[in-house]
Structure formats: structure tokens, C-alpha cells
């Protein structure tokens, strides 16, 4: 294996996994919140939030990357605020995770929202009559019943994060060991004459990884679904 992929490539694989997992893990709470607000909330600006969530899907990734670059660079409106706090996304793997999280966000939120909408209010009401606060109702009834959707959202997001390229390379460049994820590495190989073979090997690895994650999550969500309905 080690001669099949070079150490640099394995580094990219590890990095991609780290970036994707981080992106999904960190955006999950926010994703849940957004999905919940969109599913059950009635507030002004709901449609605005909805649009905002979908934005990364509509924008070409390069544009998203460019906007991230502008906003999070050292001189950018957010970057300049974060810089003194020691938080920096620019050209760091955290930036790659940020880009992946943002690009994957709409894919994460939609299925979750759908699942939240499908939870029968009758059961939430029943929980409330039994003394459960809104938070407890959410944690013990709404969330478990929506779990297949939450898992679906997380999977889609992870798969997307594993494949994300345009926004990442535009935002944090393609620095080996730091921001050179599998897709950016593939890109680099495809750009160099004779790099196709290496690119295809990397594609195979990333497909295998993502499929593995997919299978595991399918199995997980099937188990959950079986527990919920019979």
C-alpha cells in the first residue's frame, strides 16, 4: 500500500478525514438548530435564514471560497476580529474544515429539517403532559424520532466534505500537510502532465473511505430505525 500511495498522499487522506469529521462534528449543533428553527419556528426572517442556508449550494464553490477568503483573511471583516484572539482559519486545516462545513451545510440541514417536520406533534404533546420541558421533549422525543434524518444529514455532509474542492482550494490553498486534502491533491495531480494515474489512485481511496463511512452509517441508521418503528 505504501508504495501504491506515497506518504504525501496518505497524509492527504488522513487530513481529509480529519477535515471532514471536524466539519461535520462542529457544524452538527448549528445544523440541528437551523433545521429545528426552520421546521418548527415561526419568526420573522425565517425565509431569510432558509435562503442563507441554501446559499453555498447555489454559489459556485469558487465564489464561496473567494468570499471566505475575503471575509476571513487577516484584513477581512471577520478575520481581523479573530486574528487578535488567536483564532485563524487562513491557510490552516481549520479553514479547510470551515469551507467544507459551509459547503456541506445545506445538505446537512435539509434532511434534518424534513425529519423534524415529520415528528408527530401528538407525541411531543404527550411528553409535555408528562411534565417534560421543551428541552426534554426535544432531547427525548423529537431528536430520537428524527434520528434517521439527522444521520442522513450528517452522512450527506460528510460525503460532501470529503469531496469538497473548489471552495477549499480557493480559500486555504493547497498546502501539503495543512490544507492539501484528497480532492485538492487530486486536482493538483490532474493539472500536471502524467498525473492521472496518481489522481485515480487517490479517487479510489477517497471513494472507498466515503463508501465505508456510508455503509457504517446506513447500518447505524437502520438499527435506529428498527428500534423506532417495528
Amino acid at each position, binding site marked *: 500500500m505504501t508504495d501504491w500511495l506515497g506518504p504525501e498522499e496518505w497524509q492527504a487522506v488522513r487530513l481529509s478525514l480529519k477535515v471532514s469529521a471536524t466539519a461535520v462534528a462542529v457544524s452538527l449543533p448549528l445544523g440541528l438548530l437551523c433545521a429545528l428553527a426552520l421546521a418548527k419556528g415561526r419568526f420573522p426572517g425565517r425565509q431569510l435564514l432558509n435562503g442563507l442556508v441554501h446559499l453555498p449550494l447555489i454559489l459556485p464553490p469558487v465564489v464561496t471560497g473567494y468570499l471566505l477568503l475575503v471575509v476571513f483573511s487577516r484584513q477581512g471583516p471577520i478575520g481581523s476580529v479573530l486574528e487578535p484572539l488567536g483564532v485563524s482559519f487562513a491557510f490552516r486545516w481549520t479553514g479547510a474544515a470551515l469551507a467544507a462545513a459551509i459547503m456541506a451545510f445545506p445538505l446537512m440541514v435539509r434532511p434534518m429539517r424534513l425529519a423534524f417536520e415529520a415528528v408527530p406533534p*401528538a*407525541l411531543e*404533546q*404527550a*411528553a*409535555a*403532559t*408528562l*411534565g*417534560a*420541558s*421543551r428541552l426534554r*421533549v426535544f432531547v*427525548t*422525543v423529537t431528536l*430520537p*424520532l428524527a434520528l434517521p434524518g439527522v444521520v442522513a444529514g450528517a452522512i450527506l455532509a460528510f460525503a460532501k466534505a470529503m469531496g469538497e474542492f473548489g471552495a477549499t482550494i480557493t480559500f486555504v490553498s493547497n498546502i501539503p500537510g495543512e490544507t492539501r486534502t484528497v480532492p485538492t491533491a487530486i486536482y493538483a495531480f490532474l493539472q500536471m502532465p502524467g498525473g492521472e494515474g496518481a489522481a485515480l489512485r487517490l479517487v479510489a481511496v477517497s471513494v472507498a473511505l466515503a463508501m465505508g463511512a456510508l455503509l457504517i452509517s446506513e447500518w447505524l441508521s437502520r438499527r435506529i430505525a428498527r*428500534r*423506532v*418503528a*417495528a
Partner: protein
Amino acid sequence: MIEVHVKKRLGGFDLDADFAAPPGVIALFGKSGSGKTSVINAVAGLMRPEAGRIEIDGTLLFDRTRRIDVPVHRRRIGYVFQDARLFPHMSVAKNLAYGGSHERDRVIEMLGLSELLDRRPAALSGGEKQRVAIGRALMSHPRLLLMDEPLSALDAARKAEILPWLERLRDEAGLPILYVSHAASEVARLATTVVVMEAGRVGRVGAVAEVLSDPAAVGMIGAQEAGAVVRARIAGLDRIDGLTELALSGGRIVLPGRLGGIGTHLRLRISAQDVILAREKPEGLSALNILPAEVTALDEGPEGVAVGLACGADRLLARVTRRSARALRLEPGLRLWAIVKASAVAPDDVGGAA
């Protein structure tokens, strides 16, 4: 004291229910679609009335004018829904424990749930689901119980096990219960107050003995279901035959089974159709219970005559055919004999006194 006043438009349906009742069990009685579930939902806080006031034992749950609306989860109600509404992703045990574990073991025992604890609701029969729903509500230790046809999916034997428990809650724990049922026997047995709903409004409200023994209410309640509720004290026990002798204010009757210790107070429902009237005191009948009574009211309906009777301080209700009424020359003031078949008053209709 329980005070409910709710107003709400639901599509074409106008709910405007207003009643007050002393603590105990309030039976909501009425035809399908008359608004019983809607009233209960308002009390639970699941439906917000457009106007009104809901107060339970001194606690104000809702008051439109004072903008009080206690959130559902703070109302401390135990709601047994018309559909069971179990949590599909939890085992029976988890469902039961969701609201608390008050008297857990006794509730599980009483409802026969011990075999089912590890199952998911999807693997339960209709009646089993309903029992779990009842257990869940009881175990949450509510200060108000809302029960919407809780026993309709259960067989007679199971009902007979649950009803005494509810009586105990009513009497010992002093738990107010709003109880929806189409079965007069349940109502008669449990209710302190009967609220008859008609098309979203309260048609009649009153003490259970009063409403159920009123010949004029027979039409509203249904001829089959009409029957008086009387109070009795256990005066003797016949261990050999398994009989209980009861002292009513107007005489003695004997019922099958051991109904309690001597001196215990009970209430009995005596269905109007189980009372036979005679001018002469009959002899040699298998019915052991012959009480002297006086006709207080007559109400002719399409299916016969409802006869109100005074029997000591109690009121009885009898239903006879028109021909019988004429043959007996029934009229208010007439003194005659009421024959109550001992086994007609089954344990179902016997309850601890409220």
C-alpha cells in the same frame, strides 16, 4: 373545586363549555363529536381557548382575562389519550417511567404489564397499548387525571381490575379526574359529577346520583345506560354462599361476592332495566332484594316509561313498558315494591363510596 369555562371555534364547531364541580371524578358524557376531547385538551393546555378560565382545586391553569396560561408541562396532569400515544422508540418500561415512577410496582402489577416491560409499543396489542398509556399517566403522579375513554379497548375482566384503582385515587389520594366514557356503568361507578355535553355545550351537570336517577335524563343518557346510583353500607357477609348483605337507607339487599369488610360504605349502580316493580310483595323469587319504594316521577319515552323511585333517602330508577305502567297503575305517590336482581348488580357496578 374544578371550574372549567372554555370557548373556542374549531372550524364549524363551536365549543362553549362551562361547568363547575366539587372535587372527585367528573364524567364527561355525550355523543361522538359533542366536544368531550376538546374540553379535556383545553384543560391539558393542548388547546388554547379563545376565552375562558380553568381552575383546578384552587390552582388557576388558564385565565384569558388575566393572561394566565400555565404551560402544559407545568400543569402536572396525567392525560390518557383517546389514542394511546406511546413513544415508539422507547420500551414499555421507558414509556412508563417517562413522567415519573410513582407507585411503579403497584401500577405495573395492577395493569398486568410486567411481561411487557421490554417490548416496544409496536409489538403490543391494542388493549396492551392502552394499559401502558394508563400506567404512564398514573406513574407521573399527576394532580389531575384526564382520561379519554381509557378503558374502551379493554375486556371486562381488565376493566374490573382498573376501576377500583381509580376509585382509590379518587377517594384516598383525592385526585380529581376528568373522565370521558360512553359506558354508563363506568360513569355511575366512578363519577362524582356528571357533565353531559351536547354539541359543544354543557347540556346537564349535576351529582351522579341525581343525573343518573332522573327519569328526564334517560333520553340524554340512553335508555340502556340509565340507572340510579345509591349508597350502601356492608351489613353482613355470608361466607358460605359468598354473599354480601348491604344496608341501604330504604332496606337491605344481598349481592354476590365479598365486597368488603362489615361497615364499609359502597356505592351501587342499579340499572333501570334491572329493577322490577310489583304492587304486592312477591314471594319465592330467586331475586333476594325486595325494597319498599314510592314513585316520585314518571317520564314516558318512545321505548317505555322511566319511573323515578324514592327508597328511603336513595333514589332508584326503573324502566317499564307502557303496558306494565298501566297494569300497575303507576302514578307519583304510589307505594310499591322494587325488586332488584342480586346478580344484576355485578361487581362492575359496585364501587367504594365517594
